[in-house]
């Protein structure tokens, strides 16, 4: 029965116009970044590395498909949460708004199964979105710019050899799925709390903004607890591009994000199972 309900939920997601906003936005956004880098990339890269070029000797071009894919991945924190929340936030609230809880919950399927199927459908949607982003950003960028070494400047300068990159991207995308899965879980939890679809989206984005600001503060008690805020770990995919991968930090991020996801799901489940359907 679970698979039946899951297939229904996926069909419902892909029958709604709003579900294609995310795919549409990525389909537009990624080629725009690629086109901009294609025409202005060299100049931009020179400007960006101006200081470094005085100290180091650069040979060849670092502007390649991998670098473009890396730049696109950075948008995970900024754009994709909104696109994910748009669908995940509607999973339960949409039923309340439409009055269709009554249709769903008068069928011989337990509420546990329905909520679990909806949650899995939201996660599958998130996976689809990240997969589409990876295909477009990686596939198309490699076609347009070709492969090469990956040049990353953060706290230090890292140059990754061409044969050492692809697997890092694979794990980075997997981690991106975990990050956005957490955002989807939080939107899903808010979706169980309210009876309109806008609320969960606004609340999720508000939480991300507030936690991100709090994460940037170094004052007193915040310093001690901020590692527990999920926003601190959303960009941990970058750790896969360090020379030596810090497994312990990746595991911590995985635990924090996984924990947030699980708790959000359990809260949503509890609310819906106990809920009196009055709408």
């Amino acid at each position: 029965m679970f698979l039946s309900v899951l297939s229904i939920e996926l069909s419902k997601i892909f029958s709604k116009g709003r579900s294609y906003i995310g795919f549409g936005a990525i389909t537009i956004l990624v080629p725009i970044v690629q086109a901009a880098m294609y025409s202005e990339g060299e100049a931009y890269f020179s400007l960006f590395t101006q200081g470094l070029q005085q100290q180091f000797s650069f040979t060849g071009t670092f502007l390649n498909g991998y670098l473009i894919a890396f730049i696109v991945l950075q948008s995970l924190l900024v754009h994709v949460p909104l696109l994910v929340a748009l669908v995940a936030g509607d999973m339960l609230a949409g039923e309340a708004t439409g009055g269709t809880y009554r249709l769903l919950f008068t069928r011989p399927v337990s509420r546990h199964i329905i909520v679990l199927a909806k949650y899995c459908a939201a996660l599958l949607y998130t996976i689809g979105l990240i997969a589409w982003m990876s295909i477009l950003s990686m596939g198309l960028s490699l076609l347009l710019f070709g492969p090469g070494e990956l040049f990353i400047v953060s706290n230090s300068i890292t140059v990754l050899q061409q044969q050492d990159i692809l697997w890092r991207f694979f794990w980075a995308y997997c981690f991106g799925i975990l990050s956005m899965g957490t955002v989807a879980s939080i939107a899903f939890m808010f979706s169980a709390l309210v009876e309109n679809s806008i609320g969960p989206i606004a609340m999720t984005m508000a939480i991300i903004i507030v936690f991100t600001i709090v994460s940037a503060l170094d004052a007193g008690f915040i310093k001690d607890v901020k590692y527990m805020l999920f926003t601190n770990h959303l960009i941990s995919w970058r750790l896969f591009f360090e020379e030596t991968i810090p497994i312990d930090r990746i595991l911590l991020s995985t635990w924090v994000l996984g924990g947030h996801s699980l708790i959000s799901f359990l809260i949503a489940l509890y609310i819906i199972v106990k809920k009196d359907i009055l709408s």
Partner: protein
Amino acid sequence: MDKAPIIEIKSLCKMFGQFRAVGNLDLTVHKGDIYGFLGPNGAGKSTTIRMLLSLISPTSGEISVFGKSLATNRNEILRRIGAIVEKPDFYLYLTAEQNLRFLGKLSGLDIQTKLIHQALDQVGLLDRANSKVKTFSYGMKQRLGIAQALIHDPELIILDEPTNGLDPVGVKEIRELILRLKSDHNKTIFLSSHILPEVELIANRMVIINKGSAIIEGSVHDLLNSGMLTVSFSVDDTQRSQQLIHESQLAQSFLGITEHHLLMKLSKERIADCTSYLVEHDIAIDGISSTRSLEEYFLSITRS
């Protein structure tokens, strides 16, 4: 011989905070009944129906359906129930056929297109099977609501205001459909309605609830034929007729008098006595009609 009880509600109570929506409600619906569930707005009808369908949980009391406790056999019971609860809401972005297919699937059936078309045909929506529900009028959604309640061939059908929003032709069609479901398929129907003459026309048993409790329960026929009726006599001399009836003290009260009609309150047994008395006193009677309606009964019961 008594028919098997399909629904048994005992001491059902639902509190929303301090507000008692349903209190100490008892009722029994038997197999093959068309059971009218009546009550004014806020009487607790929808809350009761929602508890029957496990949409809300009772504060106390017991609900048994098909002889099994709803609390412990929810899925098994819901598989055998088809229902409309209040407004007919659907997934507006799906077609009528897709909606029915999904809902059938949720009921544990692999619904064939033929069955879906059959259900849509039953409610006159076959030609709109592939239209998105967002293009449907309220009445069409109501018909689709009935189709989704029937799609998995349930034994018990719970209909909450099923003719809301339908035009007179639609009301008649749904009434006939309900009667057919009982006569041809021996379905049990639990019908909540505000359209009292409709309940009067199709229900065999009914309960009237007010403030969450049952006021009266029984056969529609017995309930309507007990107590006082409003009887209209069409006579040639209304003044003299009124005087005669007054002298005889057969009628409890006069409600009105026109040129040819005399309207009075009478018990059913007294109609024959009055008729004989007037005829014996050379009053020509053209017609007699009793106008005891469920509406009148309902109002008198709920007001009292």
